[in-house]
């Protein structure tokens, strides 16, 4: 099972900050997962915004990055602390 983490406002939109899911066979890249989850979880495009970055196992990656069921995949809207 892949762990998917929705951070910041995305957690509110998803109704939860994390979920475990078995990746469908055709979802093999971060970009494909982004598009699939945006529809499946009803994000209404929020996950597709270019400011939402994706980290796989705590490293920022491009949308072409290959993913598997062992990964922790996080969606990060714009960050900022302080």
């Amino acid at each position: 099972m892949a762990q998917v983490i929705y951070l910041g406002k995305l957690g509110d939109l998803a109704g939860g900050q994390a979920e475990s899911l078995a990746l469908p066979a055709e979802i093999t890249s971060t970009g494909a997962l982004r598009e699939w989850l945006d529809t499946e979880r009803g994000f209404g495009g929020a996950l597709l915004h270019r400011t939402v970055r994706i980290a796989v196992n705590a490293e920022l990656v491009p949308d072409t990055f290959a993913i598997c069921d062992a990964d922790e995949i996080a969606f990060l809207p714009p960050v900022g602390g302080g």
Partner: protein
Amino acid sequence: MILLTADPINASACLEAFELGAPQSGAIVCFSGKVRSSSAGEAVRKLHLQAYPPMTGPGIAQAVADACERWSLEAVSVVHRVGDVSPGETIVFVAAASIHRRAAFEAADYLMDFLKTRAVFWKKEVTDTGERWIEPRAEDYADVARWHKEEVS
């Protein structure tokens, strides 16, 4: 020292501890950022700070390492709250110690610009009328860009 904490931050106690760890330094600059009691005219009930631990700590550690490479520093400290923070409470404490003051000023300034725009946190402001996630201001992005001008040109 880098610390993420859900407990209140006492800036003066942080400074006291920091000074003990930098006995040779001639110059210490510290910054403390606090939750303001109002935002856009509304009373703020609290600020919720979310971190993503696998990335937040390592990201700050990298920024501290970058600062230590860029300036000659004898000590650096970053203490950052997570969770719910009330108005008047300290969100962040940053300190830098060096032989002369310029390095300490610039390093503290640099680390704050990093923390405001690149550190892996999300902030939700809760007011009497609702809540909203807040992102860095345009000024914050402009501030952090100052440190990269040399590299680009």
